[in-house]
């Protein structure tokens, strides 16, 4: 092994693999040779080995004897449950649905905002107030115009005048 692996940057990985005994035999032998002359690597490997041994001491608790029974009960309960509950429990990830839901929300909002304004209800047409005098005047004007019209037409059809 040329140079200290700690100085080359790959020391941590090497020490980890050495501690986990996953190094290839020739690599392990080379590292052991290097450690005999390198105090830093030797100390690090020893510390890692201590951690490894300490973690080995952590033996887990025994498993409940009815673990399988409980599991099969849960499976049976699920299979007997109504279809909509099973659908709800299905392992569908909601993550892909989030952007779709957000896009739908934006589209709906845009549609609502851009839709034409409702046509306002026609306001009640206010009839102008007409006075009696105005009506009388208008009737007089009509009579006068009618008379003028009659006179002019009689003049137009008279043969003497032609």
């Amino acid at each position, binding site marked *: 092994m040329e140079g200290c692996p700690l100085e080359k940057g790959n020391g941590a990985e090497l020490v980890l693999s050495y501690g986990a005994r996953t190094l290839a*035999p020739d690599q392990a032998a080379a590292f052991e040779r290097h450690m005999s002359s390198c105090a830093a690597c030797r100390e690090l490997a020893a510390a*890692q080995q201590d951690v490894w041994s*300490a*973690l080995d*001491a952590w033996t887990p608790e025994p498993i409940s004897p009815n673990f399988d029974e409980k599991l099969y009960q849960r499976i049976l309960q699920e299979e007997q449950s109504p279809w909509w509950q099973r659908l709800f429990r299905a*392992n569908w990830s909601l993550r892909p649905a989030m952007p779709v839901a957000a896009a739908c929300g934006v589209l709906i909002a845009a549609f609502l905002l851009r839709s034409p304004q409702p046509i306002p209800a026609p306001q009640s047409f206010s009839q102008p107030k007409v006075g009696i005098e105005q009506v009388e005047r208008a009737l007089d004007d009509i009579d006068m115009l009618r008379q003028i019209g009659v006179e002019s037409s009689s003049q137009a059809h008279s043969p003497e005048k032609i």
Partner: protein
Amino acid sequence: MHPESIDSQAAQPSWNGRVKDNRVAHAALERDAELMLRVREGDQASFGLLLELHRVSVIHFIYRMVQNQAVAEELAQEVFLRVYRSRGTYEPTAKFTTWLFRIATHLGLNWIRDGRNEKLQDSLDQETSDGATRQLPDRGRTVEQELVYQAKLREIRQAIESLPSKQRAAVMMHKYEEMEYTQIANVLTCSESAVKSLLFRAYESLRTRLAHMA
């Protein structure tokens, strides 16, 4: 073959044993996928075999993550329930154990994230629900040896607990499940270099915290 027997072989310092283990692991990979495909076709017995093969490793992995046996068993049941629910859509595109541990890690990390572990961690002084003091497993030690062991265990558990949850999961997979960096990366859905970084930092913290135990 039971996965524990594979693990015990892998823990041997023999290099030749490691090569043999790789062959065994490859056979196990094909076996798990084959069993799961049979479960997909409705073979309940194959599910029982998968449960038999992976029950212990999944429960122990979650136990070391959440540090509570009852919760670990509850979450492990959820893991196998999810596997069973997904049987119809299973495709052997990835290693079965990677998928299994991804579910287990996801549930464990969620449980830790939700802060439900604050008051639930197993304590040696804790009483069981019926009021009786917890029975410690008989490991053939004297009372003094047992007390020393429990004190040591408490420190290890505290050291593990002090790690960020993702580092904790990475260490559990690396140390106890003997997974390779690639598989840990697949379980944690991150890069291999990210896994190495997680492990280096985690072991560095553990070396500091557990240095006096040498």
